[in-house]
């Protein structure tokens, strides 16, 4: 398969994966709520793509995932779009130039990004607005969301590794 052709198929596969997961993740009662929260699967997908792809495609898929997350719950783009665009660019750059793309690197990135991003989201959507019992809400809802998102990132790492290896040019 030529390089251009393989890229087109690969990017198409990622796009379809993102749309399907967005729909399934948001379907009422499909994924059970564990400790009052569901995982944010689009974060897992964007990070696992960024580990394998170069910085520009990583950035584009980070942008797409971030925009879908933002539009899914707030009708306007914001924190997730901006943060995932930057973070996926950095991860894409680092995994190609500074680090080895393997499961350990990915898990470290995933844990840091998931915890940081969801905590930041909590700060902007709860603490900064002055609502009471923030620590309680973070403990009972957000820690569960962070842990579940982190755990779900593992299967997405292998899925996107499979897509990357299968749909890469043989050259």
């Amino acid at each position, binding site marked *: 398969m030529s390089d251009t052709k393989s890229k087109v198929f690969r990017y198409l596969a990622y796009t379809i994966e993102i*749309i399907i997961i*967005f*729909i*399934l*993740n*948001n*379907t*009422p*009662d*499909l994924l*059970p*709520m564990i400790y*009052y*929260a*569901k*995982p*944010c*699967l689009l974060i897992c997908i964007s990070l696992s793509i960024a580990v394998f792809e170069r*910085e*520009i495609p990583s*950035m584009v898929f980070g*942008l797409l995932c971030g*925009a*879908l*997350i933002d*539009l*899914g*719950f*707030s*009708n*306007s*783009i*914001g924190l997730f*779009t*901006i943060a995932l*665009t*930057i973070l996926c*660019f950095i991860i894409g*750059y680092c995994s190609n130039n500074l680090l080895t793309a393997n499961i350990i690197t990915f898990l470290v990135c995933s844990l840091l990004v998931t915890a940081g991003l969801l905590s930041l*989201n909590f700060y902007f*959507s*709860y603490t900064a*607005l002055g*609502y*009471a*019992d*923030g620590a*309680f*809400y973070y403990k*009972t*809802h957000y820690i569960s*969301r962070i842990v579940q998102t982190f755990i779900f990132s593992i299967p997405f790492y292998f899925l996107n590794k499979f897509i990357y290896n299968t749909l890469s040019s043989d050259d």
Partner: protein
Amino acid sequence: MKEFFKSTGIKILFSVLLVVIMLSLFTNHLQNNFLSNAVNATTYGLSSVTAAATADNRSNMGYEELLSKYNELKDENTELRAKLVDYYDTKTENARLWKFYDLKKENPEYTLVPSTVLRRDANDDFYSFTIDKGTSSNVQKGDAVVTPQGIIGWIKNADVNTSKVITLLSTQTRISAINNKSSDTGIITGSAKLSEKNQTTFSKLKSDNKVEKGDIITTTGISGIYPKGLVVGEVVDVCYDTYDTSYYAVVEPYDEIKTLKEVAVITNFTGQGEILKSGEADE
């Protein structure tokens, strides 16, 4: 490092970020923005299918219960198979509308738009959700969202085909309410500690309030945002907030908000916006 900051990639990143930030500022102030419309229009069909597929999902059934349900459904299926396919759609739609018939009969001035819960996002706090009706069905920001049991939330954002509903369990909610038995008034607002128990608070009560367990709380209709007399729920406890130095009642809505599948939006009612309009006129 210098090469990294001079690379084409970093220039592209900054250009994209600039566009994203501008779009973010632009879309934040729009009630009906094109990005949200585009995403919802693209995913609406698939979301409708998946939401419908899980509509009758009962996840905690045991084997015996499932077997009995299976046999029951098998018999029912045999009976229904003879009927026309179109009949199912009509029956479903009728059943959906029938739920709100009593509410409409009691309040003929309400314009009700029945709708289905389309999405529950992973980042939705306090069990907020997206419904399958938007501005094309006259749904507007601030409209009350109800079930036959009473009010369950309000519209935060509405685009062409979908709307975001904030529930009574959310800390964003501020609804003026009254205890009809004792005439005590207060504000319905969510609480982080109570939301998971499907409970909200009736706060800012006077120190000499006469609110008791079992009292039913309804909306006051003040300001004309929500109709008067919509049932919020039943008082399950009365407490004192040491931080706020005021009394509040714990109110439990009659619906299990976390698992709602069908709701209706009150898009029009007698007295809607009247006080707001008069307030604007005074200014």
